[in-house]
């Protein structure tokens, strides 16, 4: 889709033109926000063993660590799988929605720069792999069911990846510069 410019020395992608990237990016980000809310509102994993049943929310993986006396580790996990993705989504909406009408809100350029720095610390895909590993590990000990939140989380990852693929950083900056403050 579109055209791209690559570095003649090392072959890295320098610039690509993607038609309608603002609309595409904004739509995918809105869908991702919807999935993010669902993923946090419903139980993630349910575990049944010996007539006892426990449901875990997505945030349970953070509060569990904190409860066991590992606040730093809990903070790291929380930042990588909840805080950073939420910040990325919020920043994308803040920048992209006004761009639909060729406008930019105050501090949009600072937020766009922060978005670039913060994005590498979003580890939702890695978390999904970890869920699958834990599922296989616990399967023998108890009856496990994946909750609504798990499927919303899969949707969140798909939408975030698609939004990232839809937006070219340099084209976004060009649009942002041309937009009315």
């Amino acid at each position, binding site marked *: 889709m579109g055209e791209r410019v690559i570095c003649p*020395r*090392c072959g890295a992608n*320098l610039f690509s033109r993607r038609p309608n990237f603002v609309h595409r990016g904004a739509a995918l980000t809105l869908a991702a926000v919807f999935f993010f809310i669902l993923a946090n509102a419903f139980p993630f994993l349910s575990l049944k063993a010996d007539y006892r049943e*426990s449901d875990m929310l997505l945030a349970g993986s953070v509060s569990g*660590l904190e409860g066991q006396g590992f606040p730093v580790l809990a903070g*790291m996990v929380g930042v990588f799988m909840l805080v950073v993705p939420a910040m990325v989504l919020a920043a994308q909406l803040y920048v992209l929605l006004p761009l639909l009408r060729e406008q930019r809100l105050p501090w949009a350029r600072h937020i766009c*720069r922060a978005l670039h720095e913060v994005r590498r610390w979003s580890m939702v895909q*890695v978390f999904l792999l970890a869920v699958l590993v834990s599922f296989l590990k616990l399967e023998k000990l108890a009856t496990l069911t994946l909750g609504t939140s798990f499927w919303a989380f899969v949707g969140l990852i798909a939408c975030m990846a698609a939004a990232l693929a839809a937006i070219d950083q340099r084209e976004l*900056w060009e649009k942002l510069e041309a937009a009315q403050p």
Partner: protein
Amino acid sequence: MTFDPASAAARGLARCHSCGHVESVQQLRCPRCQSPLHLRKPASLQRTIALTISAALLYLPANLLPVLQVQSALKGSSQNTILGGVAQFWEDGDYPVALIIFVASVMIPILKFVAITALCVGASSGRWPGGMTRLFRVTDYIGRWSMVDVFVVAILVGVVQLGSVMSITPGGGALAFAGVVVLMMIAAHSFDPRLIWDAAARASERAADGSRKKVDRKYRD
């Protein structure tokens, strides 16, 4: 610092790290996004090496301390280090899981140590610049996947609240390992792959100088 005469850096043009805008480096800050402009990432090699050494030191407790302690009424209590966990999955016949954890927690960190060392050597020798740049891109991308083990611990601790039957508590190894992953990610990000191309340009210039001298000597003799 000397640059390839064909490069933008030789003309004093810097590409903004953040938004990709190209501007004279004398501007100090990018006019578009206000981030500081540099021809190359500042103190790139020093930072990368320092962070890699810290990560290597932290890698010892990450592997020696347990990442997980399981206490169950039936089987008693057991502790697992990272390698112990891999071995246990393998013994239980969970080959795919054993493989995922082994690749993410053992192979990727070790390969990343090797790759960053190779990149630092490459940034001073300037050999195989194309391959080195590809190596950098892969290294920068795969680092985060090592976090899998830490997330697995978080999920297990969160979901297993069976009280009297079984309890799972995290170990210090998990914290140390998370530290290794974070330090290695910052180390890879501090590395500037253009240093490899600068070194390659210097190396080819030196080679050209050398052959010119040889030709001169030939004519003199």
